[in-house]
Structures are given as C-alpha cells and as structure tokens.
C-alpha cells in the first residue's frame, strides 16, 4: 500500500505480522467481492420494478405465488460455504504459526502496562545485566524476542501493528507475545484497550537495530548515570535526586523509586510522555514544569520548577544519553 500509516497493518515489517497478511488480504478481497456481487444481484432483482410507488401502485400489482426460489438459498449457502471453509482452515494454520511463543528466545522482555506509560525490563543472563527503561523498546533485527506482558493497574493492550497483532496486558496474569523485525527501523505501537482518559496518548516506540547497534545501545543503558561536571549540572543532579527520586529511578544515583517511568539515559529517548512529544530540551522543560498542561490526567504532579532550578535540572538530564 502506498503511503502506509504509522499504525497501519496492511503492510508488515516483522514475521508475526507478515504471517497474517495473506489471510487478511484474502478475507478482505472475498468480503469486497461478496458485497459487490450481492449489490449486483440486488440491483438486478429490481430490474423492471415499479419505481416511485406508493400504496396505490402496490395495490395495483397483483399478488401471485411465484416460483419457489428455494434453490437460491441452497445455492447461496453452498457458494458461501466455500470461502468460509477456506478461511477456517487457513485461520487454523495461521494461528498455529503465529501464536506459540518462541521456544528459545534470544531476548526476553517484561513489559508492564501502566496508566499511561510502558515499563520495559530487559532480562540479562546475570542480575547486573538486567535493566529497566520506559516507553521505548529496542530489539535486534531478525531475532525473535519474547515479550511477557503484565497489567500494572488496569487492562492495557500491547500493539505494534507492523510487527505483531495485539495482546492484552491483564492484571493477575502474564500473557506472552513475540516480536521479530525483518528490517531496521522505528515502529510505532499504541495501547489498544481503553484504559482511562489518556488512553489516546499511550504510545510506544519499537526500534529495530542491526545486532551490533543493539548491543551498543544495551551496553549504554547498562552504564550508570553520567556524573555532572558543571556547577549547574551538579545543582541539577541534586534537585533530580531529591525531587524526581520520590517516584522515578535513575540508575547510578540516589533516585531509586519504581512507581513511575525509569529515567535512566532519558536523553537517548525519542519521545516524552509515552509518544506524546518529541524529546527536546524545550518539551522536557514544559513537561517537568506542568505535565498536566500537556497530558491532562497523567499521574505526574506539576513540579512548578522555573528559572535557574529548571535550567539546572535540564542541564543534568540532557547529559544522560
């Protein structure tokens, strides 16, 4: 399809989505054909009909038994049965191909849906190789990634259309999904189970990278926070630990709370507010000062930081690549 939209799924960029496409197109084409045929039959049936009729015209046409017409029902059922049967069998085959989680995944992520952000945990072989980030997932190209889905508060749904169909994140159970990107690129995801007022702004970036680029990113994420060098940044770091640290975590600092998105290496991320804004100093400043202006019901209280304090905080955070 020309001009594919960010969340459109008539084109796929990953194995799990691509496997569904032929069946989807088949059903779509059959559906359109059926509508056209029925429309044509309907119109043809009206040939010779008395147009612009009313009660008088109705009465004037005599009533008669007419042919039984049952053959049409029989024929219609048989003809309909054929695409239905094909779709049924094809569905079972496709379902088998896409459902099962990968048996030995190279990478396992735990993604938890919260109102209105995504918590992403990368599991490593050792505890020190495990780290958490938020709202942005990086995966190596061509590798099957197991995604374990958790509901943090209410039901959310994990959906990255170009890579996979959606799977709900339900509190009390762990659902499994998997992703495999065929080519490097940025793929948009969006929560797709209504989860409250900001459901519309709970988006997700999935960035598929060449394996060595992915490893470089992972190594960077595992590094602790970059220490401040300028006096402003030092002041900023103190403010961040003190203010932000009551809800957020930045690995390698005293900010170690886990109720809100992990802010480690915040400056390396593409967007803020779960896909709401591009990540620039200007938008970050606006967000910190008055998040509710931008995302009305989000759970982050307005910090009302201004002037020197705000620029100090920004200087420190912009360091965290």
């Amino acid at each position, binding site marked *: 399809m020309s*001009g594919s*939209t*960010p*969340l*459109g*799924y008539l084109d796929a960029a990953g194995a799990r989505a691509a496997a569904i496409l032929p069946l*989807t197109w088949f*059903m779509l084409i059959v*559906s*359109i054909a*059926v*509508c056209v045929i*029925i429309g044509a*039959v*309907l119109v043809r049936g*009206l040939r010779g*009909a*008395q*147009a*612009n*009729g*009313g*009660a008088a015209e*109705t009465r004037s*046409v*005599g*009533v*008669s*038994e007419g042919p*039984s*017409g049952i053959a049409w*029902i029989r024929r*219609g*059922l048989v003809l*309909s*049965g054929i695409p*239905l049967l094909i*779709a*049924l069998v094809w*569905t079972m085959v496709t*379902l088998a191909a896409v459902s*099962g989680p990968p048996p030995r995944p190279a990478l396992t992520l735990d993604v938890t849906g919260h*109102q209105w952000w995504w918590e992403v945990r990368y599991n490593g072989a050792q505890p020190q190789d495990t780290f958490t980030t938020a709202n942005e997932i990086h995966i190596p190209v061509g590798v099957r990634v197991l995604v374990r889905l958790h509901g943090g*508060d*209410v*039901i959310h749904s994990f959906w990255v*259309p170009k890579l996979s*169909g*959606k*799977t*709900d994140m*339900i*509190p*009390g159970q762990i659902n499994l999904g998997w992703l495999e990107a065929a080519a490097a690129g940025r793929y948009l995801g969006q*929560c*797709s189970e*209504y*989860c*409250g007022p900001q459901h*519309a702004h709970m988006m997700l970036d999935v960035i598929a990278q060449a394996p060595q680029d992915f490893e470089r990113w992972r190594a960077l994420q595992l590094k602790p926070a970059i220490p401040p060098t300028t006096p402003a940044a030092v002041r900023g770091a103190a403010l961040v630990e003190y203010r932000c640290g009551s809800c957020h975590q930045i690995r390698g600092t005293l900010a170690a709370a886990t109720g809100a998105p992990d802010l480690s290496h915040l400056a390396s991320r593409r967007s803020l507010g779960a896909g709401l804004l591009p990540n620039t100093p200007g938008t970050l400043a606006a967000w910190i000062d008055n998040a509710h202006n931008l995302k009305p019901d989000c759970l982050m209280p307005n910090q009302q930081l201004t002037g020197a304090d705000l620029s100090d905080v920004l200087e420190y955070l912009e360091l965290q690549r």
Partner: protein
Amino acid sequence: MKAVQLRAPVVGPDSVAHQARLLQWWEAEGGLKGFFGSVDHKVIGIRYIVTAFVFLMLGGLEALVMRLQLAGPDRSLLTPQQYDQLFSTHGMTMIFLYASPVLSGFSNYLWPLMLGSRDMAFPRLNALGYWIYLASGIFLYTGFLTGNGPNDGWFNYVPYASRPYNPGLNEDFYSLGMVFLGIATTVGAANFIVTAFRTRAPGMSLDRLPILAWGTLTASFANLVVVPAVSLAFLMLWLDRQFGTQFFNTAGGGAPLLWQHLFWIFGHPWVYAIVLPAMGMVSDGLPVFCRRPLVGYSLVAISTVATMILGFGVWVHHMFATGLPGLGMSFFSAASIAITLPSAVAVFAWLATIRFGKPVITTAFLFFSSMILLFVIGGVSGFMTASVPVDWQLTDTYFVVAHLHYVLIGINVFPVVGAIYFWFPKMRGRMLDERLGRWNFWVMFIGFNLAFLPMHLTGLLGMPRRIYSYGPEMGWTTLNLITSLGSFVFASGVLLLLVNVIRSWSKGQPAGANPWDAPTLEWSVSSPPPVYNFAVIPTVASRHPLWEGRLSSPTCSSLQEGPLLDEGRESLGTSAVEASPDMILEVPQDSCAPAVLAAGVAGTFSGLILKSEPLVIVSAVVLGLALLWWLWPRRQLREREPA
C-alpha cells in the same frame, strides 16, 4: 362442589350490538388512571417506540458531538473525560435504551394483531416492562446529565471500572441502572414467550407465524437466560465497589476475565436479540412489496433459531486478544465463521423474493431492501474478525466500529424505519408522505455510507477505538473528516423521518384497513385498530390469510365469523403447537399496580445510589405492597373460587 365453569363461545359474525358490548368491556379509561394504568398492548407498544426514538436522538447527539471532536487532529472541543463519558453513554443508549426497546415496541404493538388475539398474555406485566424501562432510562441519564455517566465503554471492563480507578458515581449509576433495566428486559421476554405459545388465533400453527414472531420469540428465549449473566456481573461490580468484595480484584483472588466472560455470555446473544426481530420485520414487509410470499419461509424460520443457538457459542470472539489458550479460541473462531451460514439464509431468501416477485418501490421497500446490502457489508466485516489471527490486528480499531455500525444500523435501524413507513398507517390511520420518504431514505442511506464505509479503511490504517484525539501524522485526518461529514448528513436524514412522522401524525392521508394490500391479520382490522383488536376472533388457515383467494391455498381462513367472546373482557387461549382453542382467557383491566411497582423499584435503586437507607426501605415496602395488590387472587379473573 361447584360445577366447572365451561362455556362454548358463541360463534357468529360481527354486528353493531356486538361491538357495543365489546366496547363496554374494553373501553379505555381516561384521565390519570387511564394514562398510568393502561395495559393495552397498542398503547404500550407506541410508548416503547416513542421513548426509544427519544433515546435514539440523544444517542445521536452524543455521536455528533464526538464526530466534531474527531473531525480533525488534536482538537480540544472536549476534555478526555467528556469524550469518555460521551462514547460510553452513546453505546449504552443505542444498544440498551434504543435497539432492544424499539423492537419490543413493534412486537408489543403487532403481536396480538398478527397473532389474532386481543392482547398479550400478561397485559399488566407488559405495562410494568415499559415503566421500568422508562424509569431505568431516566436513572441512567440522571447519571450522565450530572456528569456521572458511564465512562468505561458500554462493555465496561474491570479493573478500570473498579473503585480505585473510578472513584466517582459513574460506574455506580451504570451498574445499578443496568440491573434495573434488566428487569424490564426479562419480564418482556417472559411475556413474549407465553403469548407466543398460549394466545394465538385458532389455526395459527407454528408454521404460520409471521417471521417477526419467530424473531422476537427467539430473542426472548435468549434474553430470558442471558440477561441474568450481565445483571450478575453488574451486581458483582457494584458489590466490589461498595462493599469491598473481591470478585474482580486480583489481589483478593478475583479475575478481570470473569467480568469479560459473564458480560460476553450475555453480550453476544444480545446482539442477535437486537437484530433477529428486525430481520423478521423485513421478512414480513418485503414480500408485501414484492407481491408474493417470502421465499423459503421454513428455512428462514429455522435459520432464525439456528443463528441464535450458534450465537450462544461464540462469545469468546470478543476476547481473542486476552491470552486464552489457542485450542479454545479455535473452537470459538470456527463457530464465529460458521454462524455466517444461518444468518445468510435470510439474505438469500430476501434476494430471491425480490428477484422472483414483482417489486414496487415504496419508501418502506427502499429501507427493507437496502438493509440487505448493509447487512452483507456488516456480515463480511464480522467474518473477517472471526479469524483469530486477523482479529489480533482488527480488534479494538475502527474496523470493528465500522462493523458494529453496519450491523446495528443496517440490521436494526434501517428495518425499523422501514417498519415505521409500513406500519404507521396501521397505528395512526394515516399514511406517511412518500415524497418526503424518498428524501428521508436517500439522505440516510448516503449519509450512513459516507460516514461508515471509509471507517473500515480508518481501522485498517490502525486507528484505535476510544481515543479522544489523534495526531496529524497518523494519516487518518481525511478519513475522519469524511466520517464526520457523513454523520451529519445521516443525522439530517433521521431528522427528515421525524418531520415526516410529525407532519403525518394528524395531517397524513387517511389510510384504510389495508393500504398496502398486505396478507397478515393486522391488516384485516381498521386503522387504527379498535381497542379490542378483533371483534370476531379469526380462524387461520394459512400464512397469508388476506391473500388466500389469490394464492394456491386449499382452505380459507375465517375472518368474518368466529368466537365473539363478548361476555367479559375475554380472549382465547390456544395450544402451543397447533393453536387449537383450549380456554377462554379473562384479560385484566387497566391497573395502576404496575406503575406503582415500577415507582417502588425506582425508589429502591435511587436509595441505593444515594446511599439512603430510609429511601430503600420505604421503596421496598411500596414495592411489596404493589406486588401484593397485583397478585391478590381476583374473582373477576377467575383466580379464585372457593371449593
């Protein structure tokens, strides 16, 4: 010991004296008692239809406001909370306060007239159903109008509907209101079932029933056994919210999926219940304008029942993305694909009836025939969502929104409008204007398709449901604009219907008993019908009593002579399958007990939401006393007679 009271009903022709005697027993009371106490199915039926249309308008306005918000990217006409209450209330209104009640209204009005009877089996229960519907609708809208409308969609998933995430009154209004409304649905279903099996005209065997009767009967059986599931779910939600129970709270061993199972076990049969009666109206009305009987009557009747039976086994297709095991989902996927077949029987029957008939295009015909195409469009999008892996992309996008509007507007609204054009003359004794009807049809048809056909593409391009705004970079801008424009065109079409009805109410061309030269019993009495429906109880010999001379039927129905039943307020009870007479029914008089009972129920629910114990207690007492008044064995109804 008293002898058993038996009477051979006097059989004879109608006469002026006879009608005078009937009027004596059946004449409606005037004033307040007459208004609040009427148990006449015709009055109740029209009340249901009018009230349902008021809710249709309200739901439509809610939709239009949402479409203004979505007409372009990043608009801020509405706050997220306002939008969320709008989409939830819109769904609740259309599905619960319009779609089912309007069909109840038509069925209530038409059944006794089509079945050759003088009223439904339970006239007072009928009245109760209406008052409860009205009161629960007002209850639900009180929530909405005070800013406490439902805000979690019409299917209301937990945990978002639970107290920690939804502390206001919104979900309490919805929960209590739905339990309240469920009472009306249940008593209505009970009434239809008993009426269908016990009060038909002699000779109206099951294979002579109008398809509307098959449709409503099937829907009623379904409603009777699935409404308790949703009432239970809402009761459990309310208890979780107000009394700290743990039905849906994972920390206490509850499960969010319990809600979904209970809700959809109800929800799926419900959506068949709101289309099968409408399909029945098409099956009864379309052949009239094709000047021939319906093709494949038996197959259509059987497929109505088969569709509903299969409909009990597909509910999980609303839960394909919830992580259920593949094997289970496969079964439901197969059933959801298979259900296309019985529901398609009617489509082929209608197409064949048109092709092998001599169609006359009237406004009613336009609505009845265009719905065939809309039905198929809705059906194929349903077919697509029936496949689990495909549904994993389609579900929760605008593709499903397009699907549900095609099936609901195409298979409920369009037939209902056709039914208005078809049966308004019977109800009011006046014709609707055909020219205005043409405009009504084309504006509605074009507007509807303009709004909803592009929506399939919007869904395929990834637009999720229930979002109050979207960015300009998403690629949905033009499509949303078209949909918004189309929705306003569609709304003006509906307005034209209103104009037509209001103008024709008193100024339409007078209609005779049978303006369309239609075959069924309701067209054998005057328009509007006398209060007692039939002066003489007809004896039926075929499906098309008024066409018998012209079709190859060997026997004729007897419409001029039959049981007179004018020695009281009487109707005939007949056997279940063959409709042979087996008793004379004493029909209850007008009574205010149902209205008082409904008030007691309303007071109870109001007390619960206001957390007022005194109100609950007083209302419960009123409720109990009204019930006692109603059920006290009455001599005049032969419910008692000492040994």
